[in-house]
């Protein structure tokens, strides 16, 4: 009897591991930046290159940093979601226009709508490296103290907005600055 039970048990254990493995997303790498201060930068604003933006200008506010680019295909599917999110909610989304051509970026916003509070230009991708960006789009949630509290890799869906971002933003809004 044992002769049959042992292989069966081994099979079940293996099957459980493989089933769990199927659900994992190898592209999702946990960010070591969670609960750490958002890296400092000062970058020119897209469309107004004479102005610069740095994260401490939003100290005391909860905001999102969304990494996007006009060459990024999945950003195109994410864009309507961000438009809808910023239209229906009081949310500050800062765009990090990553390794993009300024003109192409502006044209993209003119065509598809602009959900951003503003976008900054990271043309050589250095700020991207500081934020550990490895796949566009990525979205960071930054709290009132300027700490990164959450990172979302890949295009944000309406489901993620409703189930993840809105509850998290409400929770962070309630925190003391």
């Amino acid at each position: 009897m044992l002769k049959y039970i042992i292989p069966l048990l081994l099979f079940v254990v293996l099957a459980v591991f493989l089933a769990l493995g199927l659900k994992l997303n190898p592209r999702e790498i946990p960010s070591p930046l969670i609960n750490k201060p958002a890296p400092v930068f000062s970058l020119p604003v897209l469309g107004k290159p004479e102005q610069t933006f740095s994260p401490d200008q939003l100290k005391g506010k909860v905001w999102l940093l969304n990494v996007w680019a006009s060459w990024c295909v999945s950003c195109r599917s994410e864009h309507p979601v961000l438009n809808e999110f910023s239209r229906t909610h009081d949310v500050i989304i800062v765009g990090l226009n990553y390794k993009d051509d300024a003109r192409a970026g502006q044209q993209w916003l003119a065509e598809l709508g602009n959900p951003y509070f503003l976008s900054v230009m990271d043309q050589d991708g250095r700020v991207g490296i500081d934020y550990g960006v490895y796949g566009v789009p990525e979205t960071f949630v930054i709290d009132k103290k300027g700490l990164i509290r959450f990172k979302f890799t890949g295009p944000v869906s309406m489901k993620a907005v409703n189930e993840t971002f809105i509850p998290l933003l409400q929770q962070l809004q309630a925190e003391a600055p």
Partner: protein
Amino acid sequence: MKTLIFTFLCVVSVTVIAAVEYRKFDSPQQEQAYQNLTNELRCLVCQNQTIADSNADLAKDLRRQVYEMLQQGKSQQEIVDFMTQRYGDFVMYRPPLKPKTIILWVGPAVFIVIGLVVLVIISRKKAAGAQSVALTEHEEKRIRQLLEQEDDA
């Protein structure tokens, strides 16, 4: 034909050169450090390539970052820290030994030990089984009967 081959080779060699990045190093040690680091760091876009192997944009940027930090006189450890602070341990092809990564380091050895133990147990059982192949009295009788039947036939 010769000129054709020559032209072809020229075109090919130009494209090969175009893909190579030229970097000037201050010393052979620095160049060695650059080679070590770019062969140790994972390209996070392609995941199964080092940043030395990959042609992805991010890998190019990370190579540039490594080069610039070396030029600034940063040590290899400082550069590794810089990368892991941003991308996590996953950026290292050889993750550091930590409680979280211990299974990666000891897992293979544990499985080999388990395998060897099972192998020993099974072979011992087999050896033990081989000795006890004595026939019962009844079986011996039956065999003799069968042999006799054959003789008769």
